[in-house]
């Protein structure tokens, strides 16, 4: 266990944990876009910056990656931190002016668009945090999408930008996306959904008769978990 101070509060925490985890457990709010409990932190959105003082040295660090240490003093809301955070958000906003989630966050933090940063006009809502790609690989285990091209051309897409044969249509990438970039459309009746340019047929629950999951996803779960397909024919609410 180590002793540290976050926003003038003395906190005891387990060594090896990150500032963000410890702060959140103690009810200190730090805004983030690219953190999720099921994924390792990567520090790509840069919104979780805090001021960390160790000894005589004070610096701006990403709290989602910085491990707590004995005698560490953290300030999550100093003027310096807020300046950095506002700037980061303004840059993200200029990249994705259409993203509802970013707009909401900006309104909460009282950040307006910065005239210096010309907003992109391509209507891309992706901040390139790579959460979708990592979810598809680490959580779902399918790796149907990836980052392709580089620099200003970089974007998330399926191989060859075609319908992916490996995609199971689970929609985890659309769910995890913090800025609403990935689009998944479901028909009114719910009998099919379209994601990454491919349409998936949905399976119905044998009890309530509602459409609840893509057939390909059920087949995938049946194959990887070695469960007969019949055992997966009932939706969560009816189980």
């Amino acid at each position, binding site marked *: 266990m180590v002793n540290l101070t976050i926003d003038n509060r003395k906190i005891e925490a387990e060594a090896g944990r990150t500032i963000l985890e410890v702060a959140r457990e103690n009810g200190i709010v730090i805004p983030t876009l690219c953190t999720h409990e099921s994924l390792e932190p990567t520090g790509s959105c840069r919104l979780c910056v805090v001021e960390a003082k160790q000894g005589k040295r004070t610096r701006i660090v990403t709290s989602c990656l910085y491990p707590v240490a004995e005698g560490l003093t953290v300030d999550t809301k100093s003027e310096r931190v807020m300046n950095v955070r506002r700037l980061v958000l303004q840059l993200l906003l200029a990249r994705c002016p259409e993203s509802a989630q970013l707009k909401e966050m900006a309104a909460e933090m009282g950040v307006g668009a910065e005239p210096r940063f010309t907003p992109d006009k391509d209507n891309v809502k992706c901040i390139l945090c790579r959460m979708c790609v990592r979810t598809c690989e680490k959580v779902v285990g399918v790796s149907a999408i990836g980052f392709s*091209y580089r620099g200003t051309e970089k974007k998330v897409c399926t191989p060859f930008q075609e319908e992916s044969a490996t995609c199971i249509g689970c929609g985890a990438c659309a769910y995890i996306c913090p800025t609403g970039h990935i689009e998944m459309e479901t028909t009114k009746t719910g009998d099919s959904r379209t994601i990454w340019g491919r349409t998936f047929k949905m399976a119905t629950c044998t009890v309530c008769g509602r459409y609840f999951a893509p057939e390909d996803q059920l087949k995938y779960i049946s194959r990887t978990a070695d469960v007969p397909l019949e055992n997966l024919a009932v939706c969560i609410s009816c189980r």
Partner: protein
Amino acid sequence: MEEKVIEIVQRYSGDKSYLVPILQDVQREFNYLPKDALFSVSAHLSVPISRVYEVVTFYKAFSLKPKGRNQLSLCMGTACHVRGAELIARNVEDFLGIKEGDTTADLEYSFETVGCLGACALGPVLVVNGEYHGHMNIAKSTKILKKLGKKVATDDEQD
């Protein structure tokens, strides 16, 4: 194609950390990276195709489009640029009838412009099939292209 890819993958004992050298060898073999070859590389290395596609699109050295038999690269670095590389580029483009980054329809020529080649003292530099030609000018570039066997279309042939 499948056998060739398997042979290349086995050259590296199927180790997925050699993905880039394997792709380089595949490209050398086929002169570009055919889609089917990428799928078999993915299958034999157990690397997801999305990851292979990430690597292929990241590096400019990899091409998903067929490349010409003769590859021309013109340096557009600062030193070459100020010495008129732009004019040479226009000349090569007019001569081959393609734009920078393209390949002629008969798959004979590919032309690309590159950043600095590290031979600024020789600028402007034109690299033809790996061979450096320094102090390039419009007349010299035409001569090189003619030497490569491209017939110059005369005015009445062009119609």
